[in-house]
């Protein structure tokens, strides 16, 4: 009988090996697929059990925190946003069923405290529960409040304020906003609201015609490439014939031979159109790329929630070899579509002596024990123009505010450099199809001699001009930040 007993044991070994095989399959090999099954609520429920870290403003104001519900094993956490709609953008939301968005999504790993396999095993052995890290942002609450309340008065639009030296994002406001606390109850309603599109972060996803603010980019390309100097004069008639269509100045005003300072101060279309043709598409595209156009900005927000700026045809970015009307691109027309974030980066690069820093919302990561585990180290994104070009542009942009088209941006006692923009957007469906609708802009920085803040402000679907609606927003936000920063 012994032979049979040994064989029977062999069979038991085989049976148990089958059990190990199946267990391995479920727990390791097929685990990922199982976690994604619709019927599997476990990943969601587990996420709920982790105390997600807080998100704080630069001054410590709590923008998002998790509150516990229930006790013991049934404890779970729900996200709360004490400031409501003020930080709907760029903080976003994080809920188990609705998912994550914007800043909450980008920094999810830090906020839930994900760590390496080894250290999580060590934590398990010590009986430590997974807990998230706090993240302190660069956002200035007072300036954010001013930006959003100004926008609410002016209309739909966005404001982005960046510290030029470091790339720290001080304000990122988009109107209309939404209260993230309401997301669990009315996400689909928010999604379906196509009139206000409150979930759209206009600061990073609004693709607007830049109008005359783009002349700054054209000027940068002209100066930095050596095509012109500040002394170079170009004859600026009231009207030009470009590709069979007339291109006019406001009121068809004729300026004669003028330099960059005069042309920028008065936002002379015919001057910049000719400069654009002199610079040529190759060089202009080169400078656009250096400023960050034609690619997704390197901000700490999810890549699919930050749009690139450039010349678009049917949703596709056009390249330097595509047929474009370079003269109209040079004055911010054609099929140019830009985000407020991108225009703020242009202003910030000029303000920072030609060096563009990566715009970042986060400032530092603080672990549950209060230790700072990571700190933002400002890094350069690119160097689009030289120091001298930046200085020359600054001088020209100061003229815009002191005596040109952007006088409403002036702050008493502070030198301000900037550029207005008013892109005509008649018969635009999103604006209700009115004939007089404009996209109003102001980009600039202050103080001009030692810039502390660079800002882009824009208002969509307005009958007013950049200087009327966008420049005052710039002024209020800049003033607030300069006062706060002392």
């Amino acid at each position, binding site marked *: 009988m012994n032979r049979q*007993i040994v064989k029977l044991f062999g069979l038991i070994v085989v049976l148990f090996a089958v*059990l190990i095989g199946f267990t391995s399959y479920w727990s390791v090999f097929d685990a990922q697929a199982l976690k994604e099954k619709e019927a599997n609520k476990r990943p969601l429920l587990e996420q709920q059990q982790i105390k997600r870290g807080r998100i704080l403003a630069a001054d410590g104001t709590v923008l998002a925190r998790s509150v516990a519900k229930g006790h013991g094993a049934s404890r779970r956490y729900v996200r709360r946003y004490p400031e409501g709609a003020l930080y709907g953008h760029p903080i976003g939301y994080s809920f188990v069923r609705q998912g994550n968005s914007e800043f909450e999504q980008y920094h999810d790993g830090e906020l839930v405290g994900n760590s390496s396999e080894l250290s999580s095993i060590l934590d398990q052995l010590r009986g430590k529960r997974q807990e998230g890290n706090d993240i302190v942002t660069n956002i200035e609450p007072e300036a954010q409040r001013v930006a959003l309340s100004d926008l609410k008065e002016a209309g739909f639009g966005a404001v982005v304020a960046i510290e030029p030296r470091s790339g720290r994002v001080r304000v990122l406001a988009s109107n209309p906003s939404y209260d993230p606390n309401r997301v669990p109850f009315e996400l689909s309603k928010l999604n379906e609201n196509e009139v206000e599109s409150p979930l759209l972060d206009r600061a990073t996803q609004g693709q607007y015609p830049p109008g005359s603010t783009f002349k700054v980019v054209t000027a940068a390309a002209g100066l930095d490439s050596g095509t012109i100097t500040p002394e170079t004069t170009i004859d600026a008639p009231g009207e030009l014939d470009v590709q069979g269509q007339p291109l006019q100045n406001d009121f068809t005003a004729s300026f004669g031979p003028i330099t960059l300072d005069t042309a920028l101060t008065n936002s002379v279309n015919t001057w910049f159109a000719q400069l654009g043709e002199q610079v040529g598409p190759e060089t202009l595209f080169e400078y656009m790329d250096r400023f960050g156009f034609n690619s997704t900005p390197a901000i700490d927000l999810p890549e699919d929630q930050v749009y690139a700026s450039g010349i678009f045809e049917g949703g596709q970015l056009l390249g330097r070899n595509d047929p474009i009307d370079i003269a109209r691109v040079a004055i911010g027309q054609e099929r140019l579509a830009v985000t407020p974030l991108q225009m703020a980066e242009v202003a910030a690069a000029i303000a920072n002596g030609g060096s563009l820093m990566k715009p970042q919302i986060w400032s530092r990561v603080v672990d549950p024990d209060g230790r700072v585990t990571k700190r933002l180290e400002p890094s350069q994104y690119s160097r689009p123009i030289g120091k001298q070009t930046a200085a020359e542009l600054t001088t020209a942009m100061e003229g815009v505010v002191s005596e040109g088209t952007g006088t409403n941006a002036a702050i008493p006692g502070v030198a301000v450099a900037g550029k207005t923009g008013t892109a005509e957007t008649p018969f635009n469906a999103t604006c209700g199809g009115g004939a007089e609708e404009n996209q109003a802009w102001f980009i600039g920085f202050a103080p001009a001699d030692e810039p502390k803040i660079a800002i882009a402000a824009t208002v969509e679907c307005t009958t007013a001009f950049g200087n009327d609606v966008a420049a005052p927003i710039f002024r209020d936000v800049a003033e607030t930040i300069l006062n706060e920063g002392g």
Partner: protein
Amino acid sequence: MRSGVRNRELLALVPVALLLSAGFAAVFAQENARLGNLSLVYGAYFLAVCVATHIYLRLRLPDADPYLFPLVALLTAFGLVMIYRIDESLARDQANWFVLGLVLFALTIQFLRDYDVLERYRYTIAVVGLLLLLAPRLPGIGQQVNGAYLGVKIGPLAFQPAEFSKICIVVFLASYLREHREVLIVGARRVLGVTLPPLKHLGPLLVVWGASMLMLVFIRDLGSSLMFFAAFLALLYVATGRFSFVAIGMALFLVGAWFFASTVPHVHDRVEIWLDPYHDPIGSGYQILQSIFAQADGGLFGKGFGQGLITIPGTHAALLPAAQTDTIYSLIVNELGLFGACGVILIYLLIAARGFKIALLADDGFSKLLATGLTAVFSIQAFVIIGGVTRVIPLTGVTLPFISYGGSSIVANFVLLALLLLVSDRARREAALPRGALAMEGT
């Protein structure tokens, strides 16, 4: 030699106590509030009970296998910690049953030292076994759980008779086959190229087949039925060495199972769920799907003791239904990962190895078959439930021996262990004697 054997047992108990203390400590640490030296106290109690049992074995069965008891203690300790982690009060019950199990363990050893007496009452035992099986269908005392009739309740005393019945059936089969194995082999004839056992002696065996089929119909439990019949086939094979008998038996079982699976609704449902659990993921397929999802969440190392989710937070709704009984293995995979689960399976495998070793060493046919049958039914029980929750076979309500919550299971399995150790003690003592010093009994 004698004290050497028992010293090894004592030594093997030390890691058991350490593991238990560590486990309780982990659960305590999890519930921060009450972190204290209570875990060590529990570990000490457990160790004291184990040492008492060890001393008893030292006195009564000095030559018995030294590893079986520590291995079983390890499983029990592990089960206690898991159950404690699920529900403190359940763990207290389980600890009481553990002590009750040890009492029955000791009584079995005390009164069945000469276990040959079992052979004399084999038919009585068989009838008791069958009655136990059918008891849950008796009006007044029977209880239905999840569609299967597995429980009996007499006054305040509730138990699952199938757990005890399996021992009775194995004792009967071992005894019957010891006597008839010769004629089953010699009397076999070949019909159409298949070796068939002689019909006359086949009768009682067909009764066993009939009984397991009846179980499908009456108690509606595919798991118990599978467990019983597999143990029967294992014994038949070991006794006769004829694989053809096993093949015929298996064919009969499959035909029967197929027939009843398509006619008895409860059994039919179990098979359907097994084949396509996603058909009704929040209804009938919920338990097996949640069992597998819990495993998927465990990965290689698991989520850590006490970290797994058993109920949906904030509610009392089960996320892992029957976590303390049927799906306890899934919870182990969830919290201790594939490695922890492999450890558990390895312990069962080691117990099986020791059990079959006893059968190999045993001198007489009855002892051999008894040890084989007990080990087989124990291993197959572990396979049926682990296989059930890992979707190898349909999920049924069999307990995971020594780990699952349940008094009947733990007490019955301690009786099973006592019988194994009784066989072992005699076998090893005789093996230690010089050859020829003792007249060989049996063949």
